[in-house]
């Protein structure tokens, strides 16, 4: 369970690094000057169409990306600028306010950042990475957000989890087999000793102990063998003297 938990965390961290890196690279591809100039109602302009097409192309090339969009700060709120899904399904238009503002999202306006946990909103449960978009003068004019569907991350975690459980299962089976085999040989040798003791107790001295082990059972067999041998010698001698 500990290994599973640690692996799950490691996988989440890897996914977070991947999202952060992806957002940073995409941010450098976006024309910051054109994006900064976009205002509500500009959805049909060549600049908007070009950026939206660019985002859509990137998203299609990477099946792990669920949503791809750009945003900017507007006072205390955050609003969408270009959403790759605009015009398709429920994509946001320019200026549409995003109703949930949290530290990781705001941090994305200054440096690449990533959600610490999955976030759930009207679009579903996702893990998101953010990176600032700059204009030609280097000024931050917004950010790009990359959302990964929680099910993609869960699939990866489940695969790792199942693999760990299979390995643990195989290890338990092997250990159980070894223990069973070891127990069987111990029980067999104890039964041999018991049968020899029974034979001697009924007067049968023609028995030998053929147990060879390098453990306590082996020592017991050796001691028992010496005792039986002495008994036979003494009995033979007594018989001879009579």
């Amino acid at each position, binding site marked *: 369970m500990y290994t599973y938990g640690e692996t799950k965390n490691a996988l989440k961290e890897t996914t977070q690094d991947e999202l952060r890196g992806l957002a940073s690279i995409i941010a450098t591809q976006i024309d910051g000057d054109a994006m900064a100039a976009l205002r509500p109602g500009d959805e049909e302009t060549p600049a908007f169409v070009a950026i939206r097409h660019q985002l859509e192309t990137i998203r299609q090339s990477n099946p792990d990306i669920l949503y791809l969009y750009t945003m900017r700060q507007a006072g205390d709120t955050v609003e969408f600028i270009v959403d790759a899904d605009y015009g398709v399904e429920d994509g946001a238009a320019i200026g549409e306010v995003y109703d949930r503002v949290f530290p990781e999202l705001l941090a994305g306006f200054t440096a690449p950042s990533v959600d610490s946990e999955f976030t759930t909103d009207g679009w579903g449960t996702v893990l998101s990475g953010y990176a600032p978009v700059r204009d030609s003068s280097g000024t931050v004019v917004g950010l790009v957000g990359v959302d990964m569907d929680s099910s993609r991350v869960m699939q990866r975690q489940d695969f790792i989890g199942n693999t760990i459980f299979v390995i643990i299962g195989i290890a338990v089976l092997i250990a159980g087999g070894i223990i069973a085999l070891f127990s069987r040989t111990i029980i067999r040798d104890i039964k041999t000793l018991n049968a020899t003791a029974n034979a001697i107790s009924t007067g049968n001295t023609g028995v*030998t*102990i*053929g147990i*060879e082990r390098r453990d306590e059972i082996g020592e017991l067999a050796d001691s028992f*063998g*010496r*005792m*039986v*041998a*002495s*008994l*036979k*010698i*003494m009995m033979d*001698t007594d018989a*001879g003297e009579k």
Partner: protein
Amino acid sequence: MSQVSQQVLDIAVQYLGPAAERFLERQTKAHMDNLPFADLKRSDIPTLASWVRTSAALIIDKKKAEELAERISRLG
């Protein structure tokens, strides 16, 4: 008891227990011209080892009897 007798006895006790001396006494007397075990000499070792190999196999496991005889013969 000679030093050789004691060495042989020390080894035999590990295989035959406390009656080892009685066993060895019987071997030397019966098969080595009534020689007392206590008077054993190094030159007697090969003969004694040979008789031990045969007689001990009737009492203990054959493999162990062979091992005992081999250890005794190495004293010669």
